[in-house]
């Protein structure tokens, strides 16, 4: 008996979900990010209003003065959905842990010059409170934001800030055990240099417009603070002492570099959507940039002494350049 072998090609009836095919304009395979993001938030048939704010729906576009033709245009260029984000952070954390282990094993933190420790702790350690405030503010953006595209990315950034707060704390413990934390808390609550910063982040905790919180926290404040601390101040400590500070702040530096891409793309997309957005973003950025400069200036003073003004001018210019690149004229 002769047996004929023949190949049968079975083509799937559809390549992806209907709502994604309609979005992409063609029935083609969608990425995991698209599947885990697009149109996931309910947009109609809300049964109940929030009891604490009955003027709004549970998900409401009018919670911010920014408007978008499509809220899912605010895509994350890093394409983080929960799985991709945890994998990426797991990898970063593993490397950062390796650095902490090495510093511990070789006794590098103990051998760090006392003057360097003092300088680092004074400028750096109160930032654990800033990171915690940042966690809260980003969580607000996440919970009141509209559309999964922006709210999931804000949620990840919010959790990232908890990680940042922990890494800052661990550096403090490595340098001067629990005393470092107590001193930093006193500085945060009572130190004159920190009060503008504290006012800034605490004011944001009661700001209602979530997009404004995002601009003020992620762009204006962190856009000045991170380059100042993790680049300029880091360089200064490295030159004077040893690269231990760099090793113990690796996570934050990598995080900021990556998150900047996301933030810039959000600003660019939002500004490009309509002229009112562009104007509103410019107003917010101008307002919060001035306040952020006021908040960061005393810390720059602590870190750089007489050179503080020059360093501040540089980081402010970089921030302005980022806004210009996003198409926002200040």
């Amino acid at each position: 008996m002769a047996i004929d072998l023949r190949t049968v090609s079975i083509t799937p009836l559809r390549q992806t979900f209907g709502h994604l095919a309609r979005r992409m304009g063609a029935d083609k395979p969608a990425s995991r990010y698209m599947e885990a993001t697009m149109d996931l938030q309910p947009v109609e048939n809300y049964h109940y209003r929030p009891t604490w704010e009955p003027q709004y729906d549970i998900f409401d576009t009018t919670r911010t003065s920014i408007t978008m033709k499509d809220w899912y245009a605010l895509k994350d260029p890093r394409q983080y959905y929960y799985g991709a984000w945890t994998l990426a952070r797991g990898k970063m954390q593993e490397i950062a842990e390796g650095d902490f282990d090495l510093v511990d094993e070789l006794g590098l933190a103990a051998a760090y010059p006392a003057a360097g420790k003092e300088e680092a702790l004074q400028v750096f350690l109160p930032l654990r409170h800033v990171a915690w405030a940042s966690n809260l503010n980003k969580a607000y953006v996440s919970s009141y934001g509209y559309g999964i595209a922006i709210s999931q990315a804000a949620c990840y950034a919010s959790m990232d800030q908890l990680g940042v707060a922990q890494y800052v704390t661990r550096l403090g413990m490595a340098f001067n055990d629990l005393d470092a934390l107590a001193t930093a808390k006193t500085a945060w609550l009572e130190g004159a240099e920190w009060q503008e910063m504290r006012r800034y982040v605490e004011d944001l905790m009661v700001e209602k417009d979530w997009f404004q919180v995002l601009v003020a926290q992620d762009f204006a404040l962190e856009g000045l603070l991170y380059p100042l601390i993790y680049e300029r101040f880091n360089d200064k400590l490295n030159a004077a002492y040893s690269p231990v500070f760099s090793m113990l702040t690796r996570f934050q530096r990598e995080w900021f570099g990556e998150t900047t891409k996301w933030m810039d793309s959000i600003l660019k997309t939002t500004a490009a959507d309509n002229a009112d957005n562009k104007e509103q973003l410019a107003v917010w950025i101008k307002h919060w940039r001035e306040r952020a400069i006021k908040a960061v200036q005393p810390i720059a003073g602590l870190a750089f002494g007489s050179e503080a003004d020059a360093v501040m001018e540089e980081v402010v210019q970089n921030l302005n350049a980022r806004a210009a690149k996003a198409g926002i004229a200040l």
Partner: protein
Amino acid sequence: MSNAFIAFQKNDDSRCIIEAILDDNPGAMVDDQPSMVKIDVPNRLVIKRETVTEKMGREFDLQELQLHLITISGNLDETDDEFTLTWNS
């Protein structure tokens, strides 16, 4: 005129590579088979690192594509930024 071609296993990563190829090679023809995708381009097929990076949303090393590669045809020229298959016609 011969076709330069490349074939990949179908998965999440290779889908981004294929999208990048389609963007960068206007004459590309896709042969979509179960669990494999083959792409033909007359004379010259190029894969650019930058385009793939953008599609994937992360840094991409061109050598990573070897993980998903089934076969290629054409003379290979590989740099850090481009992976090119050509026929001299």
